[in-house]
């Protein structure tokens, strides 16, 4: 059973405008690697030179920020939804 990844607008040029992409990874880190295999170039948009998630990128598993979980080691299970969302200003 796959997990769904919600792709934000700025990255959809890389996913042929696909908004929802399915992956089979077991962790967030693996999911990013799998996205990179299928959509070359997407990894450097999400990760910085050290391999950490970029400062202005937020990644959520079922609406929980992975920084409150185990960052890229956060496990994902069947049916989970992963969202990638740019940080936005206050209100």
């Amino acid at each position, binding site marked *: 059973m796959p997990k769904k990844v*919600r792709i*934000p*607008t*700025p*990255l959809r*040029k890389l996913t042929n405008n696909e*908004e929802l992409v399915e992956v089979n990874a077991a962790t967030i880190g693996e999911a990013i690697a799998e996205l990179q295999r299928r959509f070359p170039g997407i990894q450097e*948009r999400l990760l910085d030179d050290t391999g950490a998630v*970029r*400062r*202005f*990128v*937020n990644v*959520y598993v079922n*609406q929980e*920020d992975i*920084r*409150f979980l185990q960052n890229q080691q956060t496990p994902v299970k069947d049916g989970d939804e992963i*969202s990638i*969302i*740019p*940080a*936005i*200003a*206050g*209100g």
Partner: protein
Amino acid sequence: MKALKCRECGREYPLTATHVCEFDFGPLEVVYDYNRIKQSLIRPVIQSRPQTMWRYRELLPVAGEPTVGFQVGFTPLIKADRLARRLGVRELWVKNDTVNYPSLSFKDRVVSVALSRARELGFTTVACASTGNLANSVAANAAAAGLKAYVFIPADLEQGKVVNSLVYGAEVIGIKGHYDEVNRLCAEIAGKYGWAFVNVNMRPYYAEGSKSMGFEIIEQLGWRVPQHTVVPMASGSLLTKVQKSYQEFTKLGLAPETTYHVHGAQATGCAPISTAQKAGLDFFKPVKPNTIAKSLAIGTPADGFYALKVMKETGGAADDVTDEEVREGIRWLAECEGVFAETAGGVTVGVAKKLIVSGRIPANDSVVLCVTGNGLKTLDAVVGQVGRTREIKPSLREFEALLAHEDRVTA
């Protein structure tokens, strides 16, 4: 306006409704032609214009004349001598955006820019993710401009802030979650619908509106930059834009070069930026908010990184205060200056007190407090905590008995 530019990598983009760099998700910022602006934006020109934020319009990102909110801004800068004495500082000023027009918070500044620009770009529906004040301002300004408005707020907001959006006929959507969750949803909605989300796809324009608060402070102080400015922090955007306003006026020769410090204020129940600043870090750890200062309750502050940078560059400090200290701050500002601020104002006063007591703001210096929203909107936070009414019959005898009783108590 020349272009939009990524603050991280410097890539440039056209002046459309877009807010993040496609490459690294860095925030986009408006680029101006300062050499050209310097020719026309001089003190007598500014002084000849109406007393609104639009007297600095060359430095605000609209292409033509503003069409929304042209009466916004130029709120009073109060010399707060009584509060200065209570806080123990020589010179204190309060920039009073509790009376900003039309929705009683500094958000009218950003919204008038965002909606004027949204109209220029052809939008007819506007929206926002909000902790309350922004929703009020979008609802009010959109109504006056004849635009359709959707505002998204945490479902548990103060009643005053909810009613203050509904009354203008805006579509108010309460999200069962805290602001960061509202924000996340709105980022997804903004990607899907063709609306002008003021703090999502309109953010580069929106955020620039905050500079007007700093421009006004400089002009109202007699064209000088204050030594210390204390700014409340939610996303951290206002703090960075206050510094930018000081830099721009200095660069344009409108204010003399000087050393200044920009300090940040948060509530202890949501203090990711303040915690990082005190620990000497240049990055923050997101938190889950729990504070009465709901307008500042952003656990993942989008401009937190830049706010930390500004404080570091200007030798500013950050601190945070408990809910009890927030209420005390509200009371002190009200009792000393006759200004009733919302919880964020209590945060600013409370943090200023801590910075003065600890010497991070020297007692002999001059300070401006940015007070950003009106207390009538957050009555829930202070009801029952600011004294009580004594009830008597309409009888002189009862009144005299009441006074006599008080004399005994105070004697």
